[in-house]
């Protein structure tokens, strides 16, 4: 068996492993990987996001167990110090030796630190690794100002991060413009103006000669005898390939660094390859991710004899968003090609600059620069890469087609099938279209999972979305949102089928109207429908329920569950509070007050749930249905009983409403609120239904939502008496339950509903469909058939027996682990 050793676990080193394992399993190629950093490979392209969300895990390319599962022997924190080419082995700083048949150098690069006086001072940093970032963040908390040395791509990224930390930030550039490798003078000037507008100070033509300060840095000194005070400095002047291992074992390296490779990425030694930023091909270092991935693919193909892709020098095109300003540069951006012509659009008032370079005969696009608006970037890049013949007026490409007929040549449909859409993962337009057509993909996320397009740098995301929408439209699809491959019906159609045909079980429905054996999408959707229509005990069909509904509790990290008894309106007696405390203590449960005015007890073992509930039910508690897509709570303010401003008794009304709809299952969870006056202490207008007292009655608001897209509830009807308010609520909730798509909250439902709020008012208040009485009757059936699920379980030994982790022993899950925080237990982190 071939043994491949990889030195370096950066993005390219990781990608190489992924590509090898896609082509050859552990039975064919043994993989050993050395990474000098303590953590597995992470995404350096999005490093600046670490400042706003410092979790290494989010940037991780793959978790440590990915390597294990793929039989890759990953040695993090271990540095290779010697390559012995005669004996074909590497030696690490720990003295470990590892033989190889093939060696891959993916050693990457280190930041270039210019030999300026004082670079070793405290407060001077580089910008490359998570450790660098941690150091910058720690030091930045004490600083007020910061400077970045280098106005290139990475330097500006670093400047953004420093600005986000609240520091007055300067950028120092040696050249006469920002991003000198990607932008021309005009483009750079527009970018500079935009960056200055948002508070970044930019200093061009500055040759830094010394870093001054007693111990710690406090000032930069330049060759023109000027100075700049700053508390810290981040150096981002470019990269130096890490070729020291290669040169010390006698491999050829370039005069300015880099391991020399041929088009097969082979070094002088036929058993040693170099890929990524360490490799020097045609006198060029490729400091971007996409070319590095191309190199990884080429070597992976050679080692698995699965292809003969050679590396022919990748495109260095770039598109990024710098501090909210879009910048793109591709191909011959500067217009260096002989005889080429340029087309330029510049608008200083909007900060937009677009330039394209076209061939002398005006037939081919050679490159371009976009600042301020990169919406045409993907299209232009495709036109260049596919040598698409340009339209008669090439300016249409950047100005849009201004003729009435359209057809400027820049649309998704004109893109050839062979066009590479995602350069990181090498995905073509044809790959994406084929996946959508053949796999019957119906959402954009699935396109990305299936093809991997857009999972690298993400720049092609908008284009993937366009292709998706275009393809789906061309297939004549949409509108009918069927549940899944097993049930070719919308939720509303299923609702009617189940009611009219009196279907009581999932199996009956699938046998009569579906195909296949069901899945995790249709099972809970149908379970919810059955509950909304017949209100039978849901645990009778336990294996079609999501785990929360199956075990009538909310699953948490580590496999334990949380318990939330109903506390209608948030009103609770001292006696019940004491019992909650006693139960929490007895079963060692983490206790927390919820946002819905009740108490959540976390960390219950599966096998303890029935006894916990037995004790709670004994003192009059009921299930709170916190686990279900069902009514959660009706929050209330203290109301007129106590409050000097209260108009009506909001607590009593909240309890009445909560008890009426307890256990009601819906397409998604439901929350309500009742406020005793317009001060709105119950925050009722953020709920699915909100009731607010007026001088003469109640105002009823519907379809409010917190969550990711907060939305205020809107007034359905005003000054209602209690009875009418409940009647309208019955109608509204039932209408929503019957017509919404699965897992749509009321706010989403209303936003999608044709006719919007006016239509809902027409149906509920004016009864324009003449279904008001029917809706009320259906709701009354659900109210009458309510029973507490936990009360049913604790009196039924067969149901209780389902609450055990193992089937062949009474033991609990021995792997459950807890830590503690502020005197209570919490699950061990995952």
């Amino acid at each position, binding site marked *: 068996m071939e043994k491949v050793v990889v030195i370096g676990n950066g993005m390219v080193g990781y990608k190489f492993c992924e590509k090898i394992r896609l082509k050859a399993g552990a039975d064919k190629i043994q993989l050993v990987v050395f990474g000098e950093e303590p953590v597995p490979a992470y995404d350096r392209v999005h490093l600046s996001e670490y400042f706003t969300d410092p979790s290494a895990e989010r940037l991780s390319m793959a978790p440590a167990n990915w390597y294990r599962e793929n039989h890759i022997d990953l040695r993090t924190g271990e540095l290779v110090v010697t390559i012995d080419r005669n004996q074909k082995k590497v030696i690490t700083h720990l003295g470990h030796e590892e033989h190889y048949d093939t060696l891959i150098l993916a050693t990457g690069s280190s930041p270039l630190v210019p030999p300026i006086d004082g670079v070793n001072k405290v407060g001077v940093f580089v910008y490359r690794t998570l450790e660098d970032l941690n150091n910058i963040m720690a030091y930045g908390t004490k600083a007020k100002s910061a400077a970045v040395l280098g106005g290139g791509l990475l330097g500006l990224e670093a400047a953004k991060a420093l600005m986000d930390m609240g520091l007055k930030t300067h950028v120092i550039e040696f050249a006469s413009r920002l991003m000198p490798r990607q932008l021309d003078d005009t483009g750079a000037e527009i970018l500079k103006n935009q960056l200055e507008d948002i508070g970044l100070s930019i200093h061009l033509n500055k040759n830094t000669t010394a870093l001054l300060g007693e111990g710690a840095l406090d000032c930069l000194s330049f060759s023109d005898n000027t100075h700049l005070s700053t508390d810290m400095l981040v150096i981002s002047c470019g990269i130096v390939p890490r070729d020291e291992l290669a040169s010390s074992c006698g491999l050829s390296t370039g005069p300015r660094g880099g391991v020399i490779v041929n088009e097969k990425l082979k070094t002088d030694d036929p058993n040693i390859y170099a890929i990524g930023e360490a490799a020097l091909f045609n006198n060029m270092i490729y400091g971007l991710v996409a070319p590095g991935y191309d190199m990884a693919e080429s070597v992976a193909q050679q080692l698995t004899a699965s292809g003969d892709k050679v590396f022919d020098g990748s495109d260095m095109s770039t598109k990024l968003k710098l501090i909210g300003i879009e910048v793109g540069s591709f191909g011959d951006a500067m217009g260096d090609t002989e005889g080429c012509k340029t087309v330029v659009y510049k608008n200083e008032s909007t900060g937009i600059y677009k330039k394209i370079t076209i061939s002398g005969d005006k037939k081919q696009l050679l490159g371009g620069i976009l600042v301020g608006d990169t919406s045409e970037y993907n299209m232009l890049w495709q036109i260049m890469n596919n040598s698409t013949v340009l339209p008669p007026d090439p300016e249409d490409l950047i100005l849009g087609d201004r003729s009435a007929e359209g057809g400027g040549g820049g649309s998704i449909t004109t893109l050839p099938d062979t066009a590479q859409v995602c350069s990181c993962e090498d995905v073509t337009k044809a790959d994406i279209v084929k996946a959508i057509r053949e796999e019957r993909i119906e959402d954009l996320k699935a396109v990305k999972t299936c093809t991997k397009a857009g999972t690298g740098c993400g720049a092609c995301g908008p284009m993937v979305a366009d292709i998706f929408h275009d393809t789906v439209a061309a297939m004549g699809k949409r509108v009918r949102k069927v549940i899944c491959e097993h049930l070719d019906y919308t939720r509303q159609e299923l609702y009617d089928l189940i009611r009219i045909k009196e279907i009581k079980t999932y199996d009956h429905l699938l046998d009569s109207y579906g195909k296949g*054996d069901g899945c995790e999408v249709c099972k809970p959707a149908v379970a919810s429908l059955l509950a909304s229509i017949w209100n039978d005990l849901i645990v009778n069909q336990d294996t079609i329920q999501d785990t929360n509904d199956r075990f009538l509790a909310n699953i948490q990290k580590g496999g334990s569950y949380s318990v939330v008894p109903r506390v209608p309106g948030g009103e609770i007696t001292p006696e019940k509070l004491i019992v909650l405390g006693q139960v929490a203590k007895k079963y060692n449960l983490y206790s927390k007050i919820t946002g819905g005015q009740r108490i959540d007890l976390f960390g219950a073992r599966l096998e303890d749930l029935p006894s916990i509930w037995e004790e709670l039910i004994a003192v009059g508690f009921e299930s709170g249905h916190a686990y279900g897509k069902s009514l959660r709570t009706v929050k209330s303010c203290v109301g007129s009983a106590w409050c000097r401003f209260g108009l009506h008794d909001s607590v009593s009304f909240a309890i009445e409403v909560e008890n009426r709809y307890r256990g009601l299952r819906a397409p998604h969870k439901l929350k309500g609120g009742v406020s005793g006056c317009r001060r709105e202490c119950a925050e009722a207008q953020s709920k699915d239904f909100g009731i607010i007292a007026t001088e003469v009655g109640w105002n009823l608001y519907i379809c409010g939502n917190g969550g990711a897209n907060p939305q205020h509830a809107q007034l359905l009807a005003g000054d209602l008496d209690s009875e009418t308010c409940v009647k309208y609520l019955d109608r509204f909730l039932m209408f929503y339950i019957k017509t919404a798509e699965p897992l749509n909250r009321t706010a989403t439902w209303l936003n999608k509903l044709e006719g919007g709020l006016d239509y809902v008012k027409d149906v509920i208040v004016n009864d324009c469909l003449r279904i008001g009485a029917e809706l009320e009757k259906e709701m009354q059936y659900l109210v009458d058939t309510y029973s507490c699920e936990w009360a049913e379980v604790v009196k039924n030994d067969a149901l209780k027996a389902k609450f055990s982790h*193992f*089937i062949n022993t009474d033991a609990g899950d021995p792997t459950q682990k807890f830590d503690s925080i502020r005197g209570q237990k919490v699950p061990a982190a995952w």
Partner: protein
Amino acid sequence: MDVSEEIIQYETVALEEVKVWHKVAKIGDFPVNGGACVLYKGMQIAVFNFSRRQEWYATQNVCPHKQQMILSRGMIGTQQNEPKVACPYHKKTFSLKSGENLNGNECSLATYPVKVEEGCVYVGFKG
């Protein structure tokens, strides 16, 4: 009990590799069209009674995504006729036949042979 569970490596056992058929429970002890967890020599194995297809499957109980002992509580079903289980945590789905992850490139599951004889369910191990 030994706390070395975390480092237990679950490895697929092919039918011809089975040395021990371990009797885990009676058919009636299992939920219909669902799974249950079995403890064997410190290993946790999820055994699925896919009664609709009259098939039985066994996989590791730990979901490789977040290392949670949970898969036996997952919903089972099919995708283009491939039997699968969905992890309750993040709905990652895995083939019950091959253990392969059906959502993309995450790690796959180890699978184990199951046989049913005289109303009892047995899972096959190497030893």
